[in-house]
């Protein structure tokens, strides 16, 4: 525990009203030097606490999660309070072994679930299937279905394995804000959760791809790191229907991923010069109205803006959209962190990973500018 630090809350924890009280947060810092069994030793107290209704922030390959043991009703309830999350917004249940899914799914779950799970798990894909009686309605937002994912991140797997039960977890951020992808994003949860397991910046940086198996053909509910092109190699009849307004999947019904600042998108038309000039035009127009904006540019356009003295940061290179995914939420949070009230973000072509990027970018900006 040499690297752990203890933060004591200002108020004593009140059992009756634990949801609103300040709790002391213990931070466990893990590095890549630790062996799996060393990690297991270090996070064991957090894993055990999850079964008693305590909350832990933990790393996954997609974003940081805010977890509670699925059989700890108090913990599940607290997730909604801590995040300010609407109760009908379901949580994803995280497992560490495909066999754990057997307790969670209803017998009417199609066999295809197992075929798909074997191809995509462990990894950043969530499947929505009919739920068993063991999964509480609190977790599913009252729906008869459950969203399940087997993360590939070793720390997530060890935490779930050590807890001895699946972990329900949305992203570790206040509802509506961009998801947390770096340790510094977790500060807003200090004093609200008992444990923060800090494993540095997240690898992928975008929430999982969500697929519903509640109907035939299966439906893509949320685009994510595993692209439609890759999904269709295994699920050729996959239906893409992203306009549905119903809260079928976690994080799809409500405004999400949005910083305090107003965000405008400059559409990608296939031409870098046009993109840079369109961005510049809006930037200068805002400046004329005394509105200083931060440009969220890419490696290909950053020099254009910085050479002209505009406020701009690069999210990564267009030649590797993966690098942009890794930095997207951090960049959106940077607009707020640097005190800007306006942000201008470049758009992307909606193919491959670009589909998931644009999904998040549009939500970050929706009806806001």
């Amino acid at each position, binding site marked *: 525990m040499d690297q752990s630090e203890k933060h004591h809350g200002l108020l004593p924890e009140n059992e009756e009203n634990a949801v609103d009280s300040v709790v002391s947060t213990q931070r466990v810092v893990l590095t*890549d030097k630790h*062996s*799996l*069994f060393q990690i297991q030793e270090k996070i064991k107290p957090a894993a055990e606490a999850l079964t008693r209704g305590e909350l832990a922030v933990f*790393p996954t*390959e997609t974003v940081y999660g805010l977890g509670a043991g699925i059989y700890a009703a108090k913990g599940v309830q607290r997730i909604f309070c801590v995040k300010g999350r609407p109760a009908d917004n379901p949580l994803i249940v995280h497992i*560490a*072994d*495909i066999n754990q899914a057997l307790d969670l799914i209803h017998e009417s779950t199609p066999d295809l679930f197992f075929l798909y799970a074997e191809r995509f798990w*462990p*990894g950043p894909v969530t499947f929505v299937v009919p739920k068993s009686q063991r999964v509480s309605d609190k977790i599913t937002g009252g729906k008869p279905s459950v969203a399940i994912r087997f993360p*590939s*991140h*070793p*720390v997530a*797997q*060890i935490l779930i*394995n050590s807890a001895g039960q699946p972990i329900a977890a949305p992203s570790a951020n206040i509802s509506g804000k961009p998801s947390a992808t770096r340790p510094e994003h977790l500060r807003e949860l200090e004093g609200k959760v008992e444990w923060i397991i800090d*494993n*540095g*910046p997240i*690898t*992928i940086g975008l929430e999982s791809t969500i697929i519903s198996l509640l109907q035939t053909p299966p439906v893509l509910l949320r685009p994510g*790191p*595993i*692209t439609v*092109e*890759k999904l269709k*190699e295994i699920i050729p009849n996959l239906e893409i229907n992203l306009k549905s307004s119903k809260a079928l999947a976690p994080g799809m019904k409500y405004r999400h991923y949005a910083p305090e600042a107003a965000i405008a998108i400059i559409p990608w038309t296939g031409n870098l010069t046009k993109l840079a000039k369109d961005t510049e035009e809006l930037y200068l127009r805002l400046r004329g109205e005394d509105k200083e904006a931060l440009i969220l540019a890419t490696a290909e356009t950053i020099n254009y803006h910085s050479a002209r003295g505009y406020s701009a940061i690069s999210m990564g290179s*267009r*030649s*590797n*959209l*993966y690098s942009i995914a*890794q930095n997207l939420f951090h960049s959106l949070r940077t607009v707020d962190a640097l005190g800007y009230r306006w942000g201008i973000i470049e758009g992307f072509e909606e*193919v*491959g*990973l*670009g589909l998931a990027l644009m999904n998040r970018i549009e939500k970050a900006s929706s009806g806001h500018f």
Partner: protein
Amino acid sequence: MGQVFVITSGKGGVGKTTVTANLGAVFSRLGKKTCLIDADIGLKNLDVVLGLENRILYTIIDVITEKVGSMEALVRHKTSRNLYLLPASQIATKEMMKPEDMEKVVAQLRPNFDIILIDSPAGIESGFRNAVVAADAAIIVTNPEYTAVSDADRVTGLLEKSKISEENIFLIVNRFRPNVAEKRGMLSIDDVTKTLAIPLVGIVPDSEAVVIGSNRGLPIAFESDNELNKIFTNVARRMLGHKVPLQEDYKLSKPTFWRLFKSLFKS
């Protein structure tokens, strides 16, 4: 006198039977007279993976009960003429076999083969003990998943208490996927080897071709000129004591990894 390896895992579903079938394919291609023993009694599948399920006349239980001789019970592979299978029995239960029975069967087969691979059942119960008792060396198959690594560690502990000497316990990481951006996104080879302190003899990439091969009853390593054949050949040569650097597996895996990587993040 042949060398006898038991292929084991602790956790089920890590691809142990597929690895056994593919190793059988490459050993026989290396000119080794090879026998695969399916010790997964009550759950036969090595025969299916090898495409031999319709050729079974006798099983290991028939040998134990002395209905037939051990050589008589073997099924010869359709194309690899020096690869043989001693099938498991579907109807028998694990309790019908004792460790002494396996020792007897292996003692009979050993003089006739260069390599004998015993496919152990998952778990650490009686079936595991039967499979392990007659082996000179053990291969532990694991996946880059914590539960698989943790079960592999448990099996290592048990094997160290068996008569197999510690330096004859080896590790294969199966279904390895590229560690995206070389960061903590999934379990890396380094994570696995740092945790399980046993020598690594193979890294087998997660590949659609391996799955399809097993489903069709034609393990991928039967085909020449593919990366997986070369990877399994490297594993086999390491099992025979040759020094083949693990870098070779990485190099061969790269095209496969790269294709997967690109398709995961197609832009």
